[in-house]
């Protein structure tokens, strides 16, 4: 019994979580949990403020890594085997179809949730000083999400995959100077074939996920370094015209000796007092101590529930909808109409007017605009009601994208002609 108790203690290394000290130790002593401070502000976890979109993006990424690694056990990235392995996954492997479905729908969901997350951050002005760099990292993560989806799209090696990548990379080839050479290097040749398949496979399974993981870590770390999750603008109303030289550092919430709490060590208390003095001057003063909660259980329970809901929805989606798999890729037969993945259909719609402007210039301008937003919009105003112009423009550009995607998806038929979605072909 003593042995078992020793093993358990060596793992636990903290007081009971019924005590204040235990709650603090649980977070601070854990490699994984100390992603949060020991205490958080309740308002940051209000559902209607963040909608947990950042968390859900991350959960979807985890689900995608798990299902993706599982699929790798069966998939061989050569034109001779790839399609056959997809068929095996569909019809022979236990839960193969389910796993592939979850991977496919998870990828689509991640794009939607990441874009919504970006929209939320823009809407609440959370990209403003000192969070500009984290916004830029976020834009890079959005692009990586799209690239991951795009590279994964080729792997089934069906007609959908082949032509979407043929068209998608041809759009990229219109980039002045870099375009044609870049396409050749990406495809490992001039057409989509074996060389392209192995390149996309390595990018999709190794290079891009690694880069994404590193940037996600940086993204999370910067949240803490920039003062935690940005508080809702309503909390900042009184800080919107700060005295010169001060800035609203949002969540430098000190681990203060808690009224109900008992033991913090002397040095921890000294640090806490020092932090409190700093934060007195710089952090927004929250009205009441009751607005502060221990991360455990307050934050972790909420995040756990968000994960369970995300996972449950993905399971339901994977059970009820099957990921498409068309016939084997055939370079000689272009399906009519031939469409890029849906998230690029807005671009394809623009490309049907002009390949250079629609396929290269417009997307590049959009990305550049996203990157410079936090450095151009330096007004210290976060409330959406005081940023009407910015919000209007951002919303309209986003909506325009959605409209183009809807047109490209549902209103384009044979020969890219406008058709009604309910008209039978």
């Amino acid at each position: 019994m003593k042995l078992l108790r020793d093993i358990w203690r060596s793992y636990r290394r903290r007081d009971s979580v019924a005590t204040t000290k235990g709650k603090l130790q649980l977070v601070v002593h854990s490699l994984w949990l100390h992603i949060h401070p020991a205490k958080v502000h309740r308002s940051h976890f209000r559902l209607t403020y963040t909608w947990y979109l950042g968390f859900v993006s991350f959960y979807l990424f985890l689900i995608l890594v798990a299902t993706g690694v599982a699929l790798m056990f069966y998939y061989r990235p050569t034109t001779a085997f790839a399609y056959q392995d997809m068929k095996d996954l569909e019809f022979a492997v236990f839960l193969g179809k389910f796993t592939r479905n979850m991977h496919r729908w998870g990828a689509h969901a991640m794009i939607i949730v990441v874009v919504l997350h970006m929209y939320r951050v823009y809407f609440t002005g959370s990209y403003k000083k000192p969070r500009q760099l984290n916004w830029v990292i976020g834009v890079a993560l959005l692009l990586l999400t799209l690239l991951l989806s795009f590279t994964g799209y080729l792997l089934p090696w069906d007609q959908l995959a082949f032509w979407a990548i043929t068209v998608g990379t041809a759009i990229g080839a219109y980039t002045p100077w870099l375009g044609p050479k870049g396409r050749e290097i990406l495809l490992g040749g001039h057409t989509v074939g074996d060389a392209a398949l192995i390149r996309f496979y390595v990018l999709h399974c190794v290079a891009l996920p690694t880069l994404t993981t590193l940037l996600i870590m940086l993204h999370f770390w910067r949240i803490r370094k920039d003062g935690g999750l940005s508080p809702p603008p309503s909390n900042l109303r009184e800080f919107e015209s700060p005295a010169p030289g001060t800035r609203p550092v949002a969540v430098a919430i000190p681990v203060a000796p808690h009224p109900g709490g008992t033991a913090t060590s002397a040095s921890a208390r000294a640090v806490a007092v020092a932090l409190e003095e700093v934060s007195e001057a710089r952090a927004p003063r929250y009205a009441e101590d009751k607005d502060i909660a221990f991360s455990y259980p307050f934050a972790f329970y909420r995040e756990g529930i968000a994960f369970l809901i995300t996972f449950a929805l993905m399971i339901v989606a994977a059970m009820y909808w099957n990921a498409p798999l068309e016939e084997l890729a055939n370079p000689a037969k272009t399906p009519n109409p031939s469409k890029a993945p849906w998230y690029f259909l807005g671009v394809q719609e623009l490309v049907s007017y002009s390949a250079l402007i629609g396929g290269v210039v417009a997307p590049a301008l959009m990305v550049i605009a996203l990157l410079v937003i936090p450095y151009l919009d330096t007004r210290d105003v976060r409330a959406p009601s005081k940023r009407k112009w910015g919000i209007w423009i951002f919303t309209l550009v986003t909506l325009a994208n959605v409209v183009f995607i809807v047109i490209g998806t549902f209103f384009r038929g044979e020969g890219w002609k406008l058709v009604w979605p309910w008209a039978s072909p």
Partner: protein
Amino acid sequence: MNRRSFFFSWAKAGAAALWTAGIAGTAAAVKFFQPMVSYEPPLSFKAGVPEDFPVGTPTLLPEENTFIVRDRERGFRACSAVCTHLGCTVRWSSGDQRFYCPCHGSVYDAEGKVIDGPAPRPLDWYEVTMAKDGQLQVDKHRVVPRDKRLIVES
């Protein structure tokens, strides 16, 4: 020149050398990813004997993505089936004598000239020669004017 500034001037030169090496190394790394061998279908290929191709209707060679056009009894041409817009394979419509691209609606006439849609250039025409074994030989390296034909003496 004292010892300190002497040391720093050499340190600067060293840093510059490191930067140069780094840039050269990056360029070399990019070169690594550029394919040096290709297993794609050859760009010069044999299409078949002249009798294989009907007069008036372009015949698609699916492997090579090329149409063989026999628009006169003895005249042969080869037209690219790759849309100049984004690389989809165009299809021939004999009803109105046009090439249609299924991807973004580009339309070409029988001469490969753009009639409608976003295509920036007409379709390419390739040189056709007669191989020693009597087959038509198409060379995609050689783009020729669209009125250049191979006349086969019968």
